[in-house]
């Protein structure tokens, strides 16, 4: 093999090694970032526990003044069952949005009910502690924070050559939570 052939071979070998290094680097980097996005999604589970607790607190008061078969109570019961179940976290995040609306409707109905109006303690709960607790837990479990992180990751993944390389090697886009998906 003459000098030119060896030089060309060495040049191609260098290109292959450089490409491999870039690909491995891209894969490792984006895999790590994807793992961080998934970690953020998993930590949403912890805050959803607080939502479940607040839901139980609301039901405790509601069952004293409305029939257990009341559709509004049933909606909240169903939401809590789904939030406590084995559904994927993104589905739970969607149910959490529905729970916010259902809990709000139930609180309004309770506030207007004669039973609560005649009960100083429960009226205090329905107009004071429960709405404030629900609001606080909703702030904590705000899926938009996760969505923002996932969107940033996806734009990095799709907007850079490194990201494209990582996608070729199997790194997928982060899932997004969208209200439209569930038809809620």
């Amino acid at each position, binding site marked *: 093999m003459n000098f030119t052939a060896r030089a060309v071979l060495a040049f191609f070998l260098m290109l292959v090694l450089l490409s491999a290094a870039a690909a491995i680097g891209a894969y490792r980097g984006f895999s790590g970032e994807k793992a961080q996005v998934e970690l953020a999604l998993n*930590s949403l589970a912890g805050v959803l526990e607080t939502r479940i607790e607040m839901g139980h607190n609301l039901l405790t008061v509601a069952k004293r003044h409305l029939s257990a078969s009341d559709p509004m109570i049933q909606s909240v019961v169903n939401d809590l069952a789904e939030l406590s179940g084995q559904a994927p976290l993104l589905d739970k995040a969607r149910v959490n949005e529905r729970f916010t609306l259902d809990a709000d409707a139930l609180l309004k109905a309770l506030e207007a009910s004669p039973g609560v109006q005649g009960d100083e303690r429960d009226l205090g709960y329905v107009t004071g502690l429960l709405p404030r607790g629900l609001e606080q837990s909703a702030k904590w479990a705000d899926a938009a924070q996760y969505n923002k992180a996932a969107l940033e990751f996806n734009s990095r993944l799709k*907007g850079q050559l490194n990201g494209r390389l990582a996608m070729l090697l199997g790194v997928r886009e982060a899932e997004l939570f969208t209200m439209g998906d569930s038809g809620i």
Partner: protein
Amino acid sequence: MRKRFIPFLLVLMVFCSFWTFSQAQAAAVDDQAAVIDVNLAGEITELSKLTEDNLGIGLRVLTKHFLGGADVGAFTEKALSGMSGNENLVLLTVIIGEESYHAALGSRAQEMLGREKVENLLTAHFRQPFIRDRAYDRALASFFLALSEQIQSAAGKKLPANKLLLDYAEKTAVRPAVTSAPASPVSWLEGILSDAENSVRNADRYVQETRQAEEGSGKGMSWFQIALIGFVLYKIFGRKKDGRKGCGPFSWILGTWGVSKFFGWRK
């Protein structure tokens, strides 16, 4: 100098003793629901000190508005197990908004009093004023008076003469529950969540992890590193003094800067 220092020391000592006293007073009653009269809480603490010093059994009360679906029995047993010297304690947990309660007994208290007797005392002295009348002070005073008598009878010893809780046990006025949320961010949550600290911790973790995920790894090359790489490339492949054609250092640095953007290597 010495004359000035002594009064200062005395004030400091008085302040410290008051502080220690107030800490000790607060120990027997943890009123997270803010429904117990402050003076009653003080009397329960005093009674607990008497029973603890003379008969070896301490009294504890924990109030909350809600437990978030947790079982009051399991919650109380867990809370008792986390208290120091729990084998000598009787802990009564009162959940105002759920209208439920439970008494947990440490091993020595259980041996001395028996679970059945404490349950009977709760039914006879606590249940009606708590659930029907919502007279929380009266319910607690009646129960702890009866319990202290039971402890004295089981121990075969009398407590020093005192009038603790008597006034409250006879009162019939109903004191409404405080249901407005107090100002402190954790304290009002403590009353409605089984473990507010854990909830706050989870919320903080979620915020931190989403922020980290949003920012990405943060790894990338600085301007200086890009310029350095551009310069090294210029030295290897760039224009030479011996006449070899090629770009100058600035072009190489600019090119490296462009390529780093393309690959997403910049910070």
